[in-house]
């Protein structure tokens, strides 16, 4: 039996292609840890689902969400109106689909705007310290002293017309102090690090030190807080809509839909009108919080 393999036939073990393990930046490492978090991935899945619905709302929704149908007020679920209609005969299912658009848009842009204000002011306060810090911190104190809800209600009451843009500005204007404080605290802890001294010792400008040395080391707290804040802002939007100070009707928002069901009669006999938007808010906020927690674990782990 010639089972012996000729020596020269033995395939040479491939010269182990020294594929130097690719170097990952701390940010990439954090992302890798994040992707191992199952809850966070589930959160991304759920949020992604809502985002897709929001993007294709026009295609998915069977009816115009603002179209009246006075002959069909508070209809029960039917094959025509899957979740029935509201007090003005508008199709609840279409409003649910379109509501995702408003909730996510407000949540996202209000968050971005808040972060923009918070990071700018927090950076200035944390970097320059002294008088700049005092002024900015007293301003945040002032904002934090004012009861949030009262402040928002007052502003909305003063303004005559509310649309999404104005609403976002109002929300950002009232929520920036928390993120400002977090960014300032992050800067203060970084300020004592030797690499900041190192940047100074080569004569780097203030802008360079802030943008190349402080901010990249603060992405963790910024991203984590931004995510958690977005969940919060979606709830705030719903809550304000619920008490009638949000985006006015007939614009479909989840909060507005729940307001429609603001009576015992609706609550008892008409669960399909209020349960789906409630669940949608719950799921979206839960998903975003899972993502936020996952990001926090990914960025915080000191490995």
């Amino acid at each position, binding site marked *: 039996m010639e089972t012996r393999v000729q020596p020269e036939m033995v395939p040479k073990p491939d010269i182990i292609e020294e594929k130097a393990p690719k*170097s990952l*930046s*701390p940010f990439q490492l954090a992302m890798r840890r994040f992707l191992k978090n199952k809850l966070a991935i589930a959160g991304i899945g759920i949020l992604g689902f809502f985002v897709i619905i929001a993007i294709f709302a026009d295609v998915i929704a069977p009816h115009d969400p603002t179209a009246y149908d006075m002959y069909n007020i508070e209809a029960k679920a039917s094959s025509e109106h899957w979740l029935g209609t509201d007090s003005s005969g508008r199709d609840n299912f279409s409003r649910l689909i379109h509501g995702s658009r408003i909730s996510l848009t407000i949540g996202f842009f209000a968050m971005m705007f808040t972060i923009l204000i918070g990071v700018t002011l927090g950076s200035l306060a944390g970097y320059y310290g002294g008088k700049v810090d005092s002024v900015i911190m007293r301003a945040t104190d002032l904002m934090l002293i004012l009861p949030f809800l009262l402040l928002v209600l007052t502003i909305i009451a003063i303004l005559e017309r509310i649309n999404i843009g104005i609403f976002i500005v109002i929300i950002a204007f009232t929520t920036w102090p928390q993120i400002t404080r977090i960014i300032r605290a992050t800067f203060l802890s970084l300020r004592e690090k*030797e*690499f900041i*001294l*190192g940047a100074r010792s080569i*004569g*780097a400008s203030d802008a360079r030190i802030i943008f190349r040395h402080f901010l*990249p080391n603060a992405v963790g707290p910024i991203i984590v807080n931004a995510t958690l804040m977005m969940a919060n802002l979606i709830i705030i939007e719903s809550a304000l809509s619920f008490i009638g100070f949000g985006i006015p009707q007939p614009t479909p928002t989840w909060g507005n839909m729940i307001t429609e069901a603001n009576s015992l009669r609706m609550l008892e006999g008409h669960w399909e009108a209020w349960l789906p938007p409630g669940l949608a808010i719950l799921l979206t906020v839960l998903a975003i919080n899972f993502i936020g927690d996952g990001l926090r674990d990914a960025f915080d782990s000191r490995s």
Partner: protein
Amino acid sequence: MAEKEKLLEIKNLKKYFPVKGGVLQRTIGHVKAVDDVSFDIFKGETLGIVGESGSGKSTLGRTILKLLDPTEGSILFEGNELAKLSHRKMRPYRQNMQMVFQDPFASLNPRMSIGELIEEPMVVQQSMSKQERKDKVVDLLRKVGLPEEAREKYPHEFSGGQRQRIGIARALSINPKFIIGDEPVSALDVSVQSQVLNLMEDLQDEFDLTYLFIAHDLSVVKHISDRVGVMYLGRLAEIGPKEKIYSNPLHPYTQALLSAVPVPNVETKREKIYLKGELPSPSNPPAGCTFHTRCPEAHERCRLEKPEMVHQGEGQYVACHLYTPAAVK
């Protein structure tokens, strides 16, 4: 010491940190981290500064580089006064003065790759093309004994000794004349310490560098320095050529420090000088000679009068009343 060219002249340098207290956060006192220190650094030499924790040696280094604003005094670099310059006006001088930091785990920005880190001083200080900078980075990496691939990596992938080499390469990237080493090896293992020290010595010859080497380890300072200064509580107690300081210490504090250095021979009989008490608080230093509370040779005069630096020959200066003629009454 023959007439050597002075690179840096420190005159009566003071750095006080205000201590705030009370409801109104008023200044209620000062921590005198560096208190009236004067010395020169000559071109091409290594001046070692030793002292225990809290003696102000790191503050001294940072003040010379203007990372901290001096309270008083002057810093002359090649005849140019730096003490009063703003951060912006100081920038051109930073080309010539760089620092290697103590903690290799905190002194490199963890979010920047090694290439970016070494390149940064060139970006800030010089107008070089991308390719020129890249070539320089590769060249520097080779000089400090790291592979070229390190360029793409991040600080967390390196050990303490390697990171310190990166810190050195970064400091060297703009061809400075003067480098302050702020305890550059004290965070490293002993075996790695000698590598980094030797590297620094080789680079000194190659680039014609002047070092101010701050350390608390007397044997490290002895190894690398030409001259040695001893600091105690913000003041310079003694300064002079290494041989003189180590063989013939004059200041009682220097004597006590040197007697504490372990000798690798158990047979050697030696007299250890034990100092009494603790290092006094620099916010409330003793009057007169700051060392008199712990000095075995203290006498009346030390409690009253601050000793001046006095030349004892061959470049050795001492601030101690034992060596100053009593003031004529």
